[in-house]
């Protein structure tokens, strides 16, 4: 018998996974470049949420979970130990920070490329952007 919390959390996880799948479909099989880029951002954001969620810590009682920021300017050794007990995992957050910037950079370049392609081809339909073949 699982508790309500685990049940709800599993639903959250699964919906993220389904989101990943749907955006993968959009990325791979949608013909419009703009829609492809939108799907790509959804895909990378879902990936980022996956990363955040695995760094999360189970909520037990009020006050037992905190962001990974030490608020006490002059902590004692016990304060630091306590902080390490209640704070969530900071590493996935740092990884996601990196991944967000990278995703932003790549999307930015793709948008510029799409703009330029539209100027030359007059379309954003990938089925018609096919000069290179064979």
């Amino acid at each position, binding site marked *: 018998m699982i508790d309500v919390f*685990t049940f709800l*959390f*599993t639903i959250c*996880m*699964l919906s993220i*996974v*389904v989101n*990943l*799948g*749907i955006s*993968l*479909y959009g990325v*791979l*099989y949608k013909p419009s470049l703009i829609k492809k880029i939108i799907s790509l951002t959804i895909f990378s954001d879902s990936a980022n949420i996956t990363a955040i*969620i*695995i*760094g*999360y*810590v*189970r909520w037990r009682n009020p006050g037992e979970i905190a*962001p*990974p*920021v*030490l*608020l006490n*300017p*002059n*902590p004692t*050794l016990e304060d*630091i*130990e306590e*902080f*390490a*007990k209640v*704070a*969530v*995992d*900071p*590493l996935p*957050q*740092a990884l996601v*920070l*990196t991944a967000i*910037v*990278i995703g*932003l*950079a*790549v999307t*930015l*370049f793709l948008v*510029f*490329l799409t703009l*330029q392609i539209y*100027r*030359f081809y007059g379309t954003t339909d990938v089925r018609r952007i096919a000069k290179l073949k064979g």
Partner: protein
Amino acid sequence: MRRLLGLLVIVLFITLFALVIASGGLGYEVPPLRVRELARQFLIYAYNPFNTTFTAKSPEAVTSIVWDFRGLDTLFETLVFYLAIIGALSLYRGVESERRTEVISLGLSPIVKTVTKVTTGIIIAVAASIALHGHLTPGGGFQGGATAAVAPLLILIVFSKYFLENLGLRKNVLLALRSIGLLGIGMTAFSALIVGLMANSPAYVFQNQPKPDAPVGLPAYIGDSLISGTLWFFNFFEMFAVAAGFTVIFLLLGIPEGEILKQLKEEAEEH
């Protein structure tokens, strides 16, 4: 047939992921009861006055990971952003934007303009506080820079692109500003090594605080205020680099489409 294959891939992707979650691949308990051991190390040693040779001296664990424990990642993340902007600039090579000096009549109504004048200063102040307190509170150089870039974006929309250029924020100036910010980041990464070379002591690239085998480091405090060694400098330079980078992008996107198409047409006729 092909549609079926596509659908099958998506379904299998979801199935595999769900199986991994179900069999405990993302942790025996999701979410886990305690953080992982490595995360505990980060949390304990991010700001630890009791172990001076194993700390980043920053109470913000995420910033200390981003710029100290895993600083190399962030340097190259900045490089990725930089190269994306260079790639975009390279796509716009040869597209010359018209320059206008008579710009008073352009833009939105005086009410919006007045409001923008007030808010621009506030935005810059907020951005600076986000960036320069990045080692103390959530935030950091990239977030601060992205916030600061909203100010030129507002000016661009409310006053016009030409007004922004007349303020001195031209492409070349912004690129120079950006390069200076990035070089600042690079120099900060090498600072402890340079100090170590001069003091003839072992040191590492990206070193912040002293380590057992490399006793050089940057001061964690200036006066009474905590700057966490290199972290403050990283955040400071990153803010400049990011804000300038975004503004360059806004300027490029602000060139009227008709102008670009005209130039492309002229070029095509020349060939």
